[in-house]
């Protein structure tokens, strides 16, 4: 592999650098196709998307906030940021991980089916996780749970043993710590 890249006319990968995970907040004009521009840039240039959320956050200005969790070497992360800033409808891009850290939360809807003991156990555990029951019948619950992705991951894992049938997750919303704004 090393020999291969030595023979290359093309930029060799930055092998010395470690892959890091970063949370990016991207403020964009909420216009048709803007999400396609952003994700097209990621797929076209071979960048990773680990999580993606988007919705309009400032209605009167028609601004949307896209939160992307991506991973790459610091060099790639820097390129992602600069390439995003080249897109015309992009107002600004912030690396929340790099700039003082961020609060990250996700919401999941978790459907658990079944009767009897397992059903009671599921309800008991949901209380521990502070998951709310938002829909139910004698044969199922739908739990609503919010929190860090790791907490949701754990909850889903546990429910797997108690009749989990379906999961829907929002992806991560993030906001920078401290009084500073984007």
């Amino acid at each position, binding site marked *: 592999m090393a020999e291969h890249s030595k023979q290359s006319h093309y930029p*060799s990968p930055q092998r010395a650098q470690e892959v890091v995970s970063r949370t990016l907040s991207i403020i964009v004009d909420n216009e048709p*196709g803007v999400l*396609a521009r952003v994700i097209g840039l990621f797929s076209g240039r071979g960048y990773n998307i680990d999580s993606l959320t988007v919705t309009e956050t400032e209605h009167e200005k028609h601004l949307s906030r896209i939160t992307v969790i991506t991973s790459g070497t610091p060099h790639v992360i820097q390129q992602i940021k600069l390439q995003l800033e080249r897109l015309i409808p992009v107002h600004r891009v912030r690396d929340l991980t790099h700039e003082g850290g961020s609060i990250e939360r996700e919401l999941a809807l978790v459907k658990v089916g079944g009767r009897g003991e397992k059903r009671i156990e599921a309800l008991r555990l949901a209380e521990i996780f502070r998951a709310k029951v938002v829909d139910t019948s004698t044969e199922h619950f739908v739990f609503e749970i919010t929190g860090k992705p790791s907490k949701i991951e754990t909850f889903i894992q546990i429910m797997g043993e108690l009749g989990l049938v379906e999961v829907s997750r929002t992806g991560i919303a993030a906001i920078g710590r401290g009084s500073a704004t984007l």
Partner: protein
Amino acid sequence: MARTMTGAEMVMTALADQGVEVIFGYPGGAVLPIYDELHQQDKVRHILVRQEGGAVHAAEGYARSTGKVGVVLVTSGPGATNAVTGLTDALMDSIPLVCITGQVPTHLIGMDAFQECDTVGITRPCTKHNYLVKNVNDLARILHEAFHIARTGRPGPVVVDIPKDIQFASGNYVGPSNIQHKTYRPKLKPEQTAVREAVDLIAGAKRPVFYTGGGVINSGPKASQLLRELVRLSGYPITSTLMGLGAYPASDKQWLGMLGMHGTYEANMAMHDCDVMINIGARFDDRITGRLDAFSPGSRKIHVDIDASSINKVVQVDIPIIGDCAYTLEDMLRVWKAKAPVLDKAAHKLWWKQIEGWRARKSLSYKNSRDVIMPQYAVQRLYELTKDRETYITTEVGQHQMWAAQFINFEEPNRWMTSGGLGTMGYGLPAAIGAQVAHPKGLCIDVAGDASILMNIQECSTATQYRLPVKVFILNNEYMGMVRQWQQLLHGNRLSESYTAALPDFVKLADAYGWKGMRCDHPADLDDAIKDMINTPGPVMFDCRVAKLANCFPMIPSGKAHNEMLLGEDVSDEEVQNAISKEGKVLV
């Protein structure tokens, strides 16, 4: 100032208000209202091409030779998809274009209507920006924004997709003034601290080299003037990328020739051994850098680029400067003059001595022949016989393109149009047509290969219609020469599909299009034939029969560094075949 008019009228009004004199296009169902308006006005001239791809390349040639925005008008569906190659080409080479595409009526979008395609979806990754107009009252603003985005910052192509019902609908027209985009603010002026640091580094250099690119051309003629002034003040050597040729005069003694894969020995060696590299408006393309871990290992690097994402993308630099070339050069010159630095003349003398040693290798030399026309000789003679005229050179892509870059000396910017980034065969003829439209009195020559010219040969008909006296100078070796060269280098000389067994008779073909056709196959006849071509008032197709198996040298073989160039004169066929190792083969 708002006036009420139809969408189609707005298009023509906006073009006129933007100062557009000529557009290149092809009509079709979804742009008929605009063509109807075009027919009823006389401010904007229309050049009817023979395929939409030709329209985009012609607009590129027009833009590249004038510095203005090239404008294209095509219909929906196939009209738009045919334009995609040209749009990608313009994006890669940073050429300002506005491409207006017709679209099926709004209510039919998504219905798989006749000649419908998702134009904005298809062109999103191959444009700087694109728009689908859904409200006629947005149309004028969008058109003016499109021009602004295309020509400013790092220039590029912008598509405006206009559904047919929007072209018919009436709405308010606004003029180009007071159009300010919500977010788009290209950064033109560099950080002054970076400029001062750069000047200090440049002034203290012992083995400096200027490495400039297409950004200087895009920045406008003033950037070229400022570059010349700075380079002459410093006395430093300068090389340029394929895209940057002409920014610095090739006749000057500080000029090292083009660098890169088929660049000169002295340019590449200077890049490898320099202690300070001053990159102005170039992007460390892989055809330039060669093997990256051996790229100019001992130098500190300054990189001036208007696009922040170009900096540190490929090569890590010491002093990044984000800004327009002309603004940056102006600031550098001001700081330089204020500081009046004392240069290390002794070191520079040694450096130039070393460079002269490399230059003495005469890396562009080739073995000439009395019996067959060597392609290099043909280009040399073409240059010698056209250099005193207002000449614009375009090329297709391949060996002939590299020979043109090596043997034609450019003294001015905007005289050289070639497909650098994308490498689009078929670019040269329509680009020459675009350049000729812009410069009716200029001598516009497409240096072509026999394979490339066939990719957009239909545009001969366009030249005939508008009496454009373009010249097509075909270096005809009956091969896709660059493909054949690589097959010789990499694939045991197995010439898979690189020989064109059924080439047309180019003289008869020219005749069929109403052009003059000429053929020359002997070196002794070449000068007279070229003069004949130049002196012919109309378009000429010149079938120059050249040596069939000539290779393009010097070259940095795939997987090698700048100081491992192959020079033509001392390479045997066997050495050529062994020049690239097994690992290098996959990377070409």
